[in-house]
């Protein structure tokens, strides 16, 4: 009896909590005049609403989607709240990290769910990045989110094209084919230089800025440069949040379970009626669409796109990040994104601490040496990356405390 009641209570609680917080916000807005006060109260109310929902017993098993939504909202709320207190260079790094984490999520899904591997996700990122730039140069008035969707569509389409042969390929063939695509991509770009701007790439026609009705929040007495960065960072974080929410549901859905079965035993999967080629193509398309979304966001963040960014080296970096973070996991993509966001800072810190000549050969190659080395060590000693290692430690600690 009690269980049944809780089951019905959980989504109700979320609704009530959201209504309460909206009422509270309206009350606060009418009471205070400072923008910071409003922002703070929204953030706190939303956090309370999410925590209330999450604290419902059995929520995770009875209403997994609600639970994930609340968790995503809570994460977004905290992350966006934090961005208001950071300087613009840190925000810029965070935005890049958020964009990269979307790409990593796609690769994590491809490998973790269906056991395929791609060395071409940097090129798929480039597809999205250039689609974004080309579209906004031709149709400057399209809203950002629509342009992002168009870029995702382009990525999915190219993913479908390359995914068709992928249905029949096993590991090494697929890896090699995507590698060939990654190597070919810069040549493809320069073949269509009238569209892609050749070696210099493209600029976005206008810098993205906050829409009028949000203006107040983003112009609270700071310089326009800071507010624009802040706005774009928050857009990137929100987009990443939505992408993570979708992916978490996909991982847990029927399709996700079918794909994990394919990864573990493809023959068994076929015997229970899963169509292998279709599942493989779907996984490949999802992964390339996510990569394209990340690339498009990166164009938005940088306000420009250059073909040199989308070389084979980027695909290799993507692979390193997700393997170090934890391939096949969602948290691994977050960890990888954070590593990417701050890797440049950390490496320049190492350079100054060790007294290396920052213009020297060694310092400029430090990035490759560290990432490559970590990639090998992770795969040899902790194949599930940081995420897997932490989970392993946690389960051991729990086993010990429970006797």
């Amino acid at each position, binding site marked *: 009896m009690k269980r049944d009641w809780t089951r019905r209570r959980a989504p109700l609680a979320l609704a009530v909590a959201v209504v309460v917080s909206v009422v509270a916000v309206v009350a606060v807005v009418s009471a205070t005049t400072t923008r910071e006060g409003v922002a703070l109260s929204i953030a706190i109310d939303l956090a309370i609403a999410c925590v209330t929902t999450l604290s419902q017993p059995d929520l995770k098993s009875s209403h997994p989607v609600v639970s994930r939504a609340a968790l995503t909202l809570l994460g977004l709320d905290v992350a966006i709240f934090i961005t208001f207190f950071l300087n613009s260079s840190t925000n810029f790094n965070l935005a890049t990290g958020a964009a990269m984490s979307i790409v990593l999520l796609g690769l994590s899904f491809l490998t973790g769910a269906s056991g395929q591997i791609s*060395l071409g996700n940097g090129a798929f990122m480039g597809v999205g990045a250039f689609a974004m730039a080309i579209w906004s140069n031709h149709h400057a008035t399209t809203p950002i989110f629509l342009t992002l969707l168009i870029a995702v569509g382009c990525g999915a389409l190219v993913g479908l094209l390359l995914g068709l042969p992928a249905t029949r390929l096993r590991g090494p063939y697929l*890896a090699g084919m995507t590698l060939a695509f990654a*190597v*070919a991509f810069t040549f493809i770009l320069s073949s269509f230089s009238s569209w892609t701007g050749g070696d210099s790439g493209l600029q976005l026609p206008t810098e993205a800025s906050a829409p009028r009705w949000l203006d107040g929040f983003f112009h609270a007495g700071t310089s326009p440069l800071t507010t624009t960065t802040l706005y774009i960072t928050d857009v990137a974080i929100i987009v990443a949040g939505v992408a993570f929410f979708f992916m978490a549901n996909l991982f847990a859905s029927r399709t996700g379970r079918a794909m994990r079965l394919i990864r573990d035993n493809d023959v068994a999967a076929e015997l229970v009626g899963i169509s292998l080629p279709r599942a493989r193509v779907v996984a490949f398309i999802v992964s390339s669409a996510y990569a394209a979304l990340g690339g498009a966001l990166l164009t938005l963040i940088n306000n420009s796109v250059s073909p040199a960014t989308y070389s084979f080296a980027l695909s290799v970096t993507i692979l390193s990040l997700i393997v170090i973070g934890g391939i096949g996991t969602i948290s691994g993509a977050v960890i990888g994104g954070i590593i990417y966001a701050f890797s440049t800072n950390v490496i320049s810190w190492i350079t100054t601490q060790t007294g290396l000549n920052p213009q020297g050969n060694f310092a400029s190659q430090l990035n490759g*040496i560290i990432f490559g080395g970590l990639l090998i060590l992770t795969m040899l000693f902790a194949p599930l990356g940081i995420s897997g290692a932490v989970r392993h430690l946690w389960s051991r600690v729990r086993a010990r405390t429970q006797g």
Partner: protein
Amino acid sequence: MDPFLTSRIVTDVLGGLTNGVIFGMVALSLVLIWRSTGVLNFAQGAMPMFATYVGFALLSYHFGYWACVVACVIVGLLIGGLTERLLVRGLYGKPEINPIVVMVGFLIVLEAVAAAIWSSFPRSLPTPFSFKDWQLAGKPLALSPFTVYEIVTALIVMTAVAVLFRFTKLGLQLRASAVAPEVSRLLGVRVGRLLTLGWMLSTVVGVITTILVASNLFQGLTPTVMDGIFAYGFIAAAIGGLESPVGAIVAGVLLGIINQFVTDYVNQNAVIIIALVLLIVSLMIRPSGVFTKRSERRV
């Protein structure tokens, strides 16, 4: 003299042949490792690159070209053997993405370390042969002493590998331990050693290829010298079938000739795109390669 030999088509075929044997050798070295250990070695370009840098470091001690080549081969043997023992040995039987990821990591590390030590500026290697094309009735024939040296070396290497595998006891053991490692072990074959040997052999084939590529007048030795060539080598190996050494070589040579025609009649940018299309089409028609016997995957 016959103008046919200096015509555009023959020029393209000869030019393509020179590139083609290079692709064929890279494809062969990939197949050697794939057949014996089931690993697609993504560092197959970087390992020989590193060995070539180390070997040609002897130049500054006033050693000659051939001494450097021998040094490169010895370093290649060492790198190949050590890689198999230290990096790859633990990965047999693991999910197939594990060795791919490790070898990609090794590729990054080798290229970064090489650039850190020797910088990424091209370093020109000495060559014992001239690059000047022979003339036929006042027109250049697309062959020079150097390209003949390239083609002949490639043929020697390919023949040597074929003879080793077909006609020697060692070759028989190598093939046996690739096909049926357990049975071979029971019959007294030291399978572990042979796997190491397979990697050493493949790296030596790679070293010879890299020296030929890097000695080319227009190229020079850089840490990333083999990246593009590796991509073409892989495309050739995949089209020919990773199981078939002959298929890999034939596909490599054909790919080289096709590339040359595309360069001549379309443009430079289209080359890798056409190669990619060829790869995709051939994989859709025959996923395990054109030259391999179709075999059902065992469950």
